[in-house]
């Protein structure tokens, strides 16, 4: 049964994106808002909005019972969780099921098992997906040396109970591994009362690559290619591209096959993303985790495939099978997305909430903006600072960068600080043009150069 009325349990640009996708499929929409979002773009576009509670997310967007109560009371037969908030909490699909509402996402059991790092690694191993080479327990310094020799240097020795960098040592050779064992073990006992250590290969320069997946819940899974999200600051993605231009074709095919095999092994339903670390020096990739939801950066995959992933999510939640076979997925050109945040990059990325007094976004061929903002719109201080995603598409990576450069130059926003200027600096950098970047590049190179100039 195709969905008739959809409850949108999110805010910001993704709420608006979901409402538009539903309207294209003639599905009615009810948008949940907090008191701070009564006047949001999604609330205005939707057929109806309901105020869940006060601005604090814990008493509105993050309360699963409140959300499902509202969905049921407004007669919705489907619920889209967006990303963030409750999107990967198994309780949400459980409550939906108990109330006869179709959840736009995977089964709760799948969310739970993929959310558990150990279970997810076991599932990946069973599906033949490469993991970072490592060893689960090391008993002595001699043990550490022998295992490290097998794994290959450098290695990372970590406390099993660890966190925050304590009980963590990087070793570059056998002597380092033996000495590192003693130090990490002592630190781990002191910090956590548990000296158990494990070891894995340390990847000094890696790219973050991920595969966009869509499953029908009955074992059929297709992919929409990979994305490269290596421009990050403190593990937060700033720029995403599709495809990963730095990956050779034979590895790309293996990457896609691994991701599909993992999702198919759990009869994955709806949209998901398998994330990998791409070791640049060794030209190998390792599984990190699966995100069991639509992701912020899904538009770059839509741009190279010409396929609307959110509409497909809604069709699958309504009981339909996949609307494409793998051989009908055609990827072409190159797409790049910039996450535009209301942040002051000169003040350590301090959030800059407030009212937008001027808003003039770029337009043109191959330019897409996913944003809930407009002139006069208010950015409340309670939620994340993303105000939009600027996406460009062109035949080649070079042409896409040129198009992005022009689009960013045209993007005028006043009243708040934004990261538009930083994005212009990033894409103008010779390392970005030459695609010589990795996940620590922004912090180690570009932001370091910036500070050098300021000092």
């Amino acid at each position, binding site marked *: 049964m195709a969905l008739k009325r959809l409850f949108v349990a999110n805010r910001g640009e993704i709420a608006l994106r979901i409402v538009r996708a539903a309207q294209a499929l003639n599905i009615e929409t009810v948008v949940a808002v907090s*008191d701070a979002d009564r006047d949001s773009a999604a609330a205005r576009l939707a057929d109806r909005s309901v105020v869940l509670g006060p601005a604090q997310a814990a008493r509105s967007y993050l309360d699963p019972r409140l959300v499902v109560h509202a969905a049921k009371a407004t007669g919705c037969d489907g619920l889209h969780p967006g990303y963030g908030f409750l999107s990967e909490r198994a309780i949400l699909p459980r409550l939906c099921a108990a109330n006869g509402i179709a959840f736009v996402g995977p089964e709760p059991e799948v969310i739970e098992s993929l959310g558990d790092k150990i279970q997810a690694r076991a599932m990946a191993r069973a599906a033949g997906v490469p993991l970072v080479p490592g060893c689960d327990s090391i008993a002595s310094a001699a043990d550490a040396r022998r295992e490290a020799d097998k794994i290959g240097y450098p290695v990372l020795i970590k406390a099993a109970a660890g966190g925050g960098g304590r009980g963590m040592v990087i070793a570059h050779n056998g002597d380092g591994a033996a000495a590192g064992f003693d130090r990490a073990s002592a630190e781990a006992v002191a910090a956590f009362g548990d000296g158990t250590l494990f070891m894995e290969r340390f990847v000094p320069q890696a790219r973050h690559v991920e595969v966009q997946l869509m499953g029908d819940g009955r074992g059929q899974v297709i992919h929409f290619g990979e994305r490269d999200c290596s421009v990050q600051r403190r593990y937060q993605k700033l720029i995403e591209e599709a495809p990963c231009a730095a990956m050779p074709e034979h590895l790309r095919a293996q990457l896609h096959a691994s991701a599909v095999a993992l999702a198919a092994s759990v009869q994955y339903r709806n949209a998901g993303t398998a994330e990998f670390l791409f070791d640049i020096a060794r030209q190998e990739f390792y599984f990190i985790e699966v995100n069991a939801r639509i992701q912020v950066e899904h538009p770059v995959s839509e741009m190279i495939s010409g396929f609307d992933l959110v509409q497909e999510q809604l069709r699958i939640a309504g009981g339909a099978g996949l609307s494409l076979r793998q051989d009908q997925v055609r990827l072409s050109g190159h797409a790049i997305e910039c996450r535009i945040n209301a942040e002051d990059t000169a003040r350590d990325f301090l959030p800059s909430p407030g009212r937008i007094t001027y808003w003039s976004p770029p337009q043109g061929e191959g330019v897409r903006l996913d944003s809930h903002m407009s002139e006069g719109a208010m950015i409340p201080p309670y939620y994340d600072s993303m105000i939009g995603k600027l996406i460009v598409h062109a035949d080649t990576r070079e042409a896409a960068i040129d198009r992005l450069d022009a689009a960013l130059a045209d993007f005028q926003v006043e009243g708040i600080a934004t990261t538009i200027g930083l994005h212009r600096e990033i894409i103008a950098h010779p390392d970005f043009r030459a695609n010589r970047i990795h996940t620590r590049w922004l912090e180690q190179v570009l932001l370091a150069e910036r500070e050098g100039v300021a000092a």
Partner: protein
Amino acid sequence: MTHKSSIDQPVDQLRILIEEFTRSGIATLHVRSGDFELLLSNDSGTPSLASGRPVANGPVAAPATIPAPAAAPAAVVQAVSAVPDGAVILTAPNLGTFYRAPKPGAAAYVEIGGRVAQGDEICLIEVMKLFTGVRAEVAGTIVAVLAEDGAMVEAGQPLFALVAD
């Protein structure tokens, strides 16, 4: 969007008008269209509309953080003729089902004309079988019930009007 009309458009229009008014900082707004008339005012000295015509009280009536009766203006418009200027509007703290009585078949916590002390429980809001009591912020006399028993109410929706002691 053709399916847009399926959801109360006049109510939406009224809600938008009240929100825009609240944000604009305009002191008084008087709208007349056919036999519909609406007076919004931020000034408690503004005279009410004459006769028994529907009048929506502006933000002055609500001491809570919610500036305007946004969620169910239709109910407000019907009931408000009985709400004197300066009445306190008690609002829902979150979305849920509004119950006037502690259990089915029991007497309502409070009726129109009834007196409540500060802190008295005056209704329940239910979310997924979890019932939370709503308490009167001030002592006074209930002069109007602004939401329907058993209906969904949204956060900030007016539930009762009360004339403080």
